[in-house]
């Protein structure tokens, strides 16, 4: 049953960071910073918030699936760019079309390295949580059923709960906004 209570939406710049200054990252936040950057208000907000986290010596944490999702987006975005449409890009991926995919490998590698470079900028090393931690998948499946979440969303939230955190930065307000009891850093 979906709760009527929802996440509390926090402003990226106007709200003070949580007491222990630990913020969980959703993939949507990282991709907005890297791929949108100053082209959109959202991208610019993401970059400025990363700079704020860096300056205020925040500790960041995220699920290991963030790397995988980030890679998927880099790959899809490159193929949509070259193929001109999402359906053609998806077809090339389904077929494993080497002629289409291979020319983009270096750019995709650069995207991943940019993510690594961003993560290297924090004073305290970020925490990466794997879905193999005790109780994490059980909790994720519970969340999935209770809130009708996509698989990845439930893993992100369960990973955050694993560390007893309640603060997540994400631009997916539609899905993460459903979770009662968390603070969703999404306003800018």
């Amino acid at each position: 049953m979906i709760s009527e209570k929802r996440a509390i939406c926090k402003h990226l710049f106007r709200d003070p960071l949580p007491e222990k200054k630990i913020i969980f990252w959703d993939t949507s936040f990282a991709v907005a910073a890297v791929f949108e950057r100053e082209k959109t208000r959202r991208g610019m907000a993401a970059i400025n918030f990363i700079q704020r986290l860096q300056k205020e010596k925040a500790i960041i944490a995220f699920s290991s699936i963030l790397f995988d999702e980030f890679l998927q987006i880099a790959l899809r975005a490159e193929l949509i760019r070259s193929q001109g449409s999402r359906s053609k890009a998806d077809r090339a991926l389904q077929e494993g079309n080497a002629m289409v995919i291979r020319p983009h490998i270096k750019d995709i590698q650069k995207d991943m390295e940019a993510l690594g470079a961003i993560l290297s900028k924090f004073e305290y090393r970020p925490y990466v949580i794997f879905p193999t931690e005790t109780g994490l998948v059980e909790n994720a499946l519970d969340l999935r059923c209770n809130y009708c979440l996509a698989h990845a969303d439930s893993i992100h939230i369960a990973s955050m709960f694993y560390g007893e955190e309640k603060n997540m930065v994400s631009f997916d307000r539609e899905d993460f906004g459903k979770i009662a009891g968390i603070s969703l850093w999404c306003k800018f």
Partner: protein
Amino acid sequence: MKKEIDRVAEIFKRYNGSAVRYQPRHYSDKSIKEICDAVKPLPTGIDPVKILHDIRKKGYL
């Protein structure tokens, strides 16, 4: 300073040492903005957050 040490220690304890600490092989000397600017820009009209949303709903290919 003690407060800062306590904050970091408390978080470390909470994770019980089991979460992996991300240690980059290379530490970038560029600013966050410079790092992002070096990435090939997406053409107008491609929304990466929407692509993520689609991947989550439809699954990987």
